[in-house]
Each structure stands twice: as structure tokens, then as C-alpha cells.
């Protein structure tokens, strides 16, 4: 949908975009700026543009000393990566089958996946720990991965259902007439067309896994298995942390995501745009 390029339309558009950026970015800007202020300044009246910088990054060094940041970062990445892969595999299969085949009770099946979202996570985490302990996975990142998948797969199924549903069957039929198997039709026709959906699911799965605190907290007890939110939670809860350090801690948690996102945004944009190629 494109607006005509009249001046008012352009100005409205750019004005809207500017407001949108301000709305989205300002709190983040404030977080970063506050973490870089020298301590004294934080008690002086705040200015929008910082007048002085703490080039020593004191708040950051203090925090990094307190935690095992590199290890926890790695754990978070591994868990989130595995969650994305598993989620995509499982939810694509489930969503595809549900929209293409006659399955009795499919509404109930898919609907009951939502139950994971309808209970306080703490109440679910404790029985989950029992299950995993029974399987011998008590203190392992695999239990965290599995727990995260219970959060991401329902989302993946529901989102992809929306994509697969409006995809007309004739395209697949045509491919199969041309000699493809169903699986072939799937890979060659359906998948490329639903790339925006798949990319979306991948992103959400990654974020849900990365930002989870409760499951990672309950299911893991060794320091070597902790993920980033768990590791940094103790910082955000210490008694003598002041705003500068809190902001530094917040930035440290958010930073990997922001960096990762900068790298992957290209794929994200491409994925979104891929659907625009057709038609």
C-alpha cells in the first residue's frame, strides 16, 4: 500500500516515523546515557544530553566483576539457538499438517497448547522440574531448552497457522502435478512463500528464550549452567546498587540482544521482504 507522494503525505509520513522512533528509542537512550554518567552527576538535576562522560565505564567494570558474564552469555545463546531450531521444526510441521489434513479434534489439540500461557510460570516450573529430575535432566540446560519450547511452540504453531491457512493449495497442487512429492512441494513452494512467518517465529522464539527468567532460575542450579537473566538478576537485587550501576546492568542484559539484532536485522528485513516479491 503506498501513499501518493504529495508533500503533506510525505511530511505526515516522516513526522509519524520520527515520533515512532522517539517513542521506541527514548527510554533505551536514557538507560545507556545514565549508565555512562559519573556517579556524582546522577544526583544532580538530569540533562537530556549528558554533560560529562564516565570514560572509565566504572559501573560496567564493577558489574562484570560480579558475574560470569561471558559464560552466562554463551549459555543464553546456546539455549536460545537450540530453542529456535526445535521450535521451527516442530511448529512448522504441526501448523502445516493442521492446515492441510483432516485431523479430528485439531482445534482442541492446538487450543490446548495455549494452556502453557494461561498459568503463572512459577506454578508450572516446579512440576516441570520434577519431570526433568525424573528424566535425569535436573540441572542441565536441556531442561531449560525443553521448558522454553513449551512457550515457543504454541506461539509458532498459531502464527504459522495464520500464514499457511491463506496460502492457496493450487500452488502445491501444481508443483505436485509437475512431479514433486508432497514434501518437495512443501520445500519448494510453501516454505519460501511463508518465509516472513518463519522468520517472525524464529525471532520471537529467540526472544522468548533469551529473556526468560523463571524457568531458567528454577530448573538450573549450578553457576556453570546459568543464563544471562538469572546471572544478572542478583545484581539488580543487590542492596547497594545505585541507579548508575542498575542502568549498566540493564544495558549489559540488553546489549547482546541489540547487537545480535543489528546483525540479524538484515535477514529479518529480507525475510519480511521476501513475501513481497511475489504478486
Amino acid at each position, binding site marked *: 500500500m503506498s501513499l501518493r507522494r504529495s508533500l503533506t503525505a510525505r511530511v505526515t509520513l516522516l513526522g509519524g516515523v520520527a515520533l515512532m522512533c522517539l517513542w521506541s528509542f527514548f527510554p533505551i537512550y536514557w538507560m545507556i546515557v545514565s549508565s555512562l554518567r559519573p556517579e556524582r552527576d546522577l544526583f544532580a538535576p538530569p540533562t537530556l544530553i549528558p554533560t560529562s562522560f564516565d570514560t572509565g565505564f566504572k559501573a560496567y567494570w564493577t558489574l562484570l566483576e560480579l558475574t560470569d558474564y561471558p559464560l552466562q552469555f554463551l549459555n543464553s545463546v546456546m539455549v536460545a539457538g537450540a530453542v529456535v531450531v526445535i521450535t521451527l521444526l516442530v511448529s512448522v510441521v504441526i501448523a502445516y499438517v493442521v492446515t492441510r489434513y483432516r485431523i479430528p479434534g485439531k482445534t482442541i489439540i492446538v487450543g490446548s497448547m495455549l494452556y502453557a500461557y494461561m498459568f503463572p510460570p512459577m506454578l508450572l516450573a516446579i512440576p516441570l522440574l520434577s519431570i526433568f529430575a525424573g528424566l535425569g535432566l535436573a540441572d542441565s540446560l*536441556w531442561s531449560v531448552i525443553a521448558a522454553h519450547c513449551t512457550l515457543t511452540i504454541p506461539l509458532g504453531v498459531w502464527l504459522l497457522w495464520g500464514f499457511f491457512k491463506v496460502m492457496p493449495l493450487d500452488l502445491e497442487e501444481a508443483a505436485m502435478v509437475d512431479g514433486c512429492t508432497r514434501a518437495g512441494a512443501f520445500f519448494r513452494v510453501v516454505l519460501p512463500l511463508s518465509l516472513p512467518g518463519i522468520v517472525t517465529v524464529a525471532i520471537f522464539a529467540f526472544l522468548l528464550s533469551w529473556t526468560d527468567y523463571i524457568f531458567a532460575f528454577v530448573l538450573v542450579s*549450578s553457576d556453570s549452567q546459568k543464563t544471562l537473566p538469572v546471572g544478572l538478576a542478583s545484581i539488580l537485587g543487590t542492596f547497594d546498587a*545505585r541507579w548508575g550501576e542498575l542502568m549498566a546492568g540493564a544495558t549489559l542484559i540488553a546489549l547482546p540482544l541489540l547487537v545480535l539484532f543489528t546483525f540479524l536485522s538484515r535477514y529479518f528485513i529480507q525475510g519480511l521482504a521476501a513475501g513481497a516479491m511475489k504478486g
Partner: protein
Amino acid sequence: MAEQDSSKALIPPSATTDTFSRRRVITTAATGAALMALGAPAVHAQTKTIRFLNAEPSRESVRALRVAAAEYEKQTGVKVVVDTVPPDDAYSKLQASLSSGTPYDIGTLAFAGHMLILAEAGKLVPMTKLIEKSKWGPRILFPVKGEHYWYPYDYNFCWMYYRKDLYQQKGLKVPTTFEQMAENCKALTEGGKFGVGHPLGANSATQWMSIGYLWADGLKMLDDNFKLLIDNADMKPRMIRYLDFMKKLQPSMPPGMTQALFGTVLGQYSGGQIAHAPYAGRLMEVLEDRAPDLAGKTGFFMYPDSAGKAQAVNHASDGWVLLNTPMRDEAYKFMEWFTERHYINFLHSAPLHFQPPRLDVYEDARWRAHPLIEKHAELVEFMRGILSNKDVIIRSIDTEGPRIDLRPGKMFETFAISEAIQNRLLKDMPAAEAVDIMAKKYRAVL
């Protein structure tokens, strides 16, 4: 640094360098799955391991525990794995570990009530013999049916700190009554600074830092049969006096105190925003760290009452519990060794905040040798005086009543007193009415 146990390694070391590659992740996942399928759970065949849940996340305390663990392992070959969590989460973590069948062997708790629940559920091992080796201060041991399941490592009394220099400037004297306290705070509220910072929210900070005045004024919440007293003829006037006093203090407090937590007040005092701050030893440690010039200008006194006759501190403490697990004998031996050899080291991780509950420590030259303890000898004497002076009232909501019981703990968790304070201060409700609401809430859980 925690070492990765190779038998539990999720991934081959080579895969860590290329974490963004999907193919690698899939291969990794497949390898991991294969390892799992081969049934490779942790097989520490010969090494015994004790799991210790620690709820003191400060750098120093974690280090103290790690040092102790390393030394113990060197001496006995038994590994002690320390898991550190934020103090508010320790109890849930302990419960989760118990209910899933993978319990910690030693735990840390901040409420004796939690210890009571675990003890009554049969999950704890008594440490009576360890306790009986030493002499202890008042109101710190909580025996359950004659056995001791709780090994405390600190008193966290809350008292009042104040700016001696500002007092001198204004010619003020240490207050001994509510009136004087209100006057002093009023005199020190000017130029964007405030007289005092009392948390007012429905949280533990308020119930630790803002109610000491009530105890000084002689309030008892429960009688020896756990019946509620606060709205009877003797106690209700005291509650009313207190609420009206807090209302008087309100203009001397910075805005936003309903959001204030422990650290807020520390920040406000060390930043020079407030002239009085309720806290325990940690305030002085923080001052030494961040505002050393203030440390020398800071004095202290206990909560005064309304009449000038009594003084009080608010009570809190932390302790360790021993859980009933297959490793309990090893864990007991570790506790025995630890409380003998490393107790003082651990206390030194917060030398002024972890006030020793064991009386022998005060005489121990090793404890006294810490620079902060030496420097603040006056404060240490003050703290010690709280224990030895029979006139000082030491109370807290969750330890009301003749013995440790869950009911005062439930009263604590209603935060009814925070509600009463907010009703009086924010909604300008008459104090008597606020007390009635509070009593109703308490009765509902008793």
C-alpha cells in the same frame, strides 16, 4: 571460576567458536542428544558433592564461601558446590529443589518461619549439638520441639543513623521521643533535602525500617496464646500514636517512599538527600565505599518511644539449615568445620552488617582485626550494647509470640501495617480506623 565438568559437557569445545551458525547448532544438538541417549548423566563416581544454596549475592560473601569450599575440598576431598541466588528467591528455590527430588544439602533462609515449615515437614536435620557448642545472643535461636534446625549467621538490627554535622549546625540533640524526632526531621528538611527516609510500601523494607518506633513504644502484637492484641485498650493507643507520628513525619520525607526499597534509602543517605536513615551495619559499609567523608559525620541511635523512656531496634536475621538428604552426614561435617573455621571469614564479608549472633566472636581477636571493625569501634560497641542491655527492646513482626510459629509470619506477609501507614498518610484516614482495618487483616490469618 566454576569449572565445567567434562562428563556433563553439553557441547564439544570446538563448537563454541561459531555460535551463530545454524548448522553447528543442529550438529551440536544432535551430538548432545546422542550423549543423552547414551545415558551420560553426571557420574561423579568417587567425588562426594555437597550442594549449598547461598542467599548472600555480594561479591565478598560469594568469595568467602568459595574460598571455604576450596579449602574443604583440599582437606577432605569432598566438593562443595555453591549456588547463589537473590535473597528473595532462596525460599522458592529451596522448595522447588525439594519437591522435585533434587534437594540442596545446605540452604540459607532469611525468615525463621521458613525454617519452621521445613522442619515440621521433616525436611531438616537438627544441628543442636553444633548450636550448643557456643553462647548466643537473645532472640536469635528458634528451637522447634527442643531441637535446633537454624544456625544463624547474623543479626540485622535496624536502628537510626543521622548526620552529626547537620545536628551540630542546627543545635539539635539526639531525640528520645517521637516529638523530638519529628522536630529534628522538620528542622533538617530544607533546600531540596529531607529529614528522613522511611519506606512506606507493602514490602519487607517498610516492615524492617519503619516500625521500630512501635516496639519502643511498648507495642506487643500477640499474646502468649497468639491472640491479637493491637486493637485492645492497651495497645490501640500506641498504634494510634505511632500512625499520627508517621503522619507528622510525612512532610520531612522525600516523595516516592512507597516505591522505596532497602537500597533506595542507602542511596538517599549516601547522596546527602536525607539527614536520617534507618538501617543496619551495611549503611556504614556503603558510606566507607562511596561517601567516606560522610562516614565520619554519621552517628546512630535507636528508635525512641513517645515518652522518652524506652528504645528499640527492629529484628531480622539470616541462618543456615541442613536438609535431610543422602549427603546429610557429609553436610553436617562440613557445617561443623565451616562454623568452626570459616564463620569469622564469612562474617567479614560484611563486617558491620553481619552482626555476630554468637557471643564468642566479639572477644575473638581475629574478628576484631578487621579494619572496618577497628575503625568503627564505637558503632560496634553500640551494636553489642543492643545485645547486652536488657532495656533495649528487640522485636519484629514475624517473631512475635512466645515461640517461633507460622502465624506471625503470615501476619508479616499481609503487609497490613504498610497498608495502615499508607491509609493514614496518603488517604488521611483517621488512625483508629486504619488500626481496625489492620486488625481485621491480621485476624483473618491467625
